[in-house]
């Protein structure tokens, strides 16, 4: 380990031309194996069944993935502070029950019912945060307790029946089942994002150069912006040849985008990563550690509740079996496959998109090739093991290289 001390480039090495965007390229590289896995999955399933990559199937796939994705996003937040929430499935099921009973049985206005359901979820999360930060109970145990409580409450809320149907004309059901962005709107959003990204990148480059810091070349900026345009525009255009980008999908991506900006660009986000990396250092650095924990748990449970509400809309019903342990484990698996560390500190909001993409690509593919239902968890498990292995190996080699 003494080699790097004497320096690769003499002066403080950051004068190396590529140093300034090292972290950016690092992050891109980290998601490469997952993207490669997605492409491989797509090619294999397409070869087995020509309908796999059809726009219709991809629209279905994105619609199915959106709710799991929202749960995974919350899980990413909790994992990044080095904790875990085992109750997201149960909380989403409870929220579905609350919204269905409030609308169909009690006749509450939809908005009130949705807010109530999300508030119930947030209360669970706030409770976890309080018990963890004030009483020191491990999150594994508190959220396990929350899982059991949630399952019981779900049954009680629905009682005396096991299933409460939502009316098909409810706007929640319509939003979850039939809301799609108009093609012009979706492509317009893509255009705004691409132009905005390009403008910000050029401005950032100008500021870095003015500060005499290494910056990307103009060509690299253009190339990346063009890449973004193709990477976003092409799928959106393709989905638009069928029903288009679902409202839930847009909501999911929007939430991920907001979470990503907050995690990377704000002091709060920095505190989340610092706490997940080393709580004691974060505390000594003056971050409000307790508040951040409570906020992460609350956001996670509230997102799980939101996903439960949307899921109730998608199937137009809430039933006793909604949510459940498998959903929780899927969310954890998706977060880890997407590149978020189980041990805190490392991860990104976009890992929710990648991980859920992989898991649902497998699920959808196996359904299309009429595989036995038991194969899905097996394949998902193998992919999860691979993802964790790739992460562990790459981290070890990075540490060994001293970079």
């Amino acid at each position: 380990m003494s080699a790097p001390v004497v320096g690769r480039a003499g002066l403080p090495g950051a004068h190396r031309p590529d140093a300034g965007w090292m972290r950016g390229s690092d992050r891109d590289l980290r998601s490469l194996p997952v993207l490669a896995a997605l492409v491989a999955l797509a090619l294999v399933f397409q070869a087995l069944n020509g309908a796999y990559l059809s726009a219709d199937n991809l629209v279905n796939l994105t619609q199915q993935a959106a709710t799991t994705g929202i749960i995974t996003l919350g899980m990413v937040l909790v994992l990044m502070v080095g904790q875990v929430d085992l109750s997201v499935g149960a909380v989403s099921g409870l929220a579905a029950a609350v919204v269905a009973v409030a609308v169909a049985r009690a006749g509450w206005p939809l908005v009130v019912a949705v807010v109530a359901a999300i508030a119930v979820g947030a209360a669970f999360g706030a409770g976890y945060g309080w018990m963890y930060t004030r009483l020191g109970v491990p999150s594994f145990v508190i959220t396990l307790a929350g899982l059991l409580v949630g399952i019981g409450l779900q049954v009680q809320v629905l009682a005396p029946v096991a299933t409460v149907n939502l009316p098909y004309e409810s706007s929640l059901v319509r939003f979850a089942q039939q809301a799609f962005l108009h093609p012009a709107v979706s492509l317009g959003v893509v255009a705004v994002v691409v132009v905005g990204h390009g403008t910000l990148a050029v401005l950032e480059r100008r500021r870095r150069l003015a500060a005499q810091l290494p910056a990307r070349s103009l060509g690299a900026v253009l190339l990346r912006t063009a890449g973004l345009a193709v990477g976003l525009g092409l799928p959106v255009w393709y989905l638009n040849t069928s029903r288009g980008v679902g409202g839930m999908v847009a909501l999911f991506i929007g939430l991920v985008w907001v979470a990503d900006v907050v995690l990377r660009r704000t002091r709060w986000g920095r505190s989340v990563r610092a706490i997940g990396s080393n709580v004691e250092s974060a505390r000594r650095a003056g971050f409000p550690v307790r508040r951040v924990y409570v906020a992460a748990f609350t956001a996670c449970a509230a997102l799980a509740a939101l996903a439960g509400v949307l899921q109730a809309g998608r199937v137009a019903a809430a039933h006793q079996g909604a949510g459940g342990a498998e959903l929780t484990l899927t969310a954890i698996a998706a977060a880890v496959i997407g590149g978020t560390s189980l041990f805190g500190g490392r991860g990104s909001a976009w890992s929710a998109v990648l991980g859920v993409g992989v898991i649902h690509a497998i699920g959808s593919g196996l359904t299309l090739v009429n595989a036995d239902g038991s194969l899905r968890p097996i394949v998902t498990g193998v992919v999860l093991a691979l993802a964790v292995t790739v992460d562990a190996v790459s981290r070890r080699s990075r540490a060994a290289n001293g970079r």
Partner: protein
Amino acid sequence: MTHPPVMSLRGITHSFGAVRALVDVDLDVHAHEVVAVVGDNGAGKSTLVGVMSGALVPDAGEVVVDGQEVLLRSPGLARQLGIATVFQDLALCEDLDVVENLFLGQEVRRGPVLDEVAMEREALRLLAQLSARVPSVRTPVSGLSGGQRQAVAVARALVGEPRVLVLDEPTAALGVTQTAEVLNLVERVRDRGYGVVLVSQNMADVQAVADRVVVLRRGRVNGVFDAASASYEDIIAAITGVSPQRRGGAS
């Protein structure tokens, strides 16, 4: 030493239950000076670091900074008053990069968002000032060597221009090359006008960089030596208490 000290401890006394960790300890730190605090295990070095860093409020005694008596109630307050401490464990976040660690808890913002450009520029300036070499300021700290980490921790302590830098056992876990790096670092910090308190158990390090040596024994100051003139044996004697003596540039 014609200038008044930037930091003085006067009669610092602290007990943990029945254990008297510090008894009536005096310590002066001037600008452009490295004061080494040495002592055996349990001599009270860590407690003293705690007091200077603001992590520990002593039972009795006063801390004077720039001629003003202050109460170091918290690490944040100590920092504001210009006393920065690098703890033995460095308190770095492994997953965060060098810039992020340097500004941990004191991020520069531009409106609601972090100003990465300003922070990166300042990080480069601080590291250059210490002639510290890291592969890139955007490398996660997990990829740095022990000496590089120490440099990052020291650079972080210098964010916000403190006047006194307290280093707690900076070379304890390092190999020969990296120890030399860190000692160079200490000298550069001193040469830039900071007062440095070097808490150490390693006599070789102390003799290499210290201007004055304060020996703690069982919570009391058991001798203050001028590093240039004091012999190794004198200091060891004061540490072990074989023949306690007081001489040299007394405070």
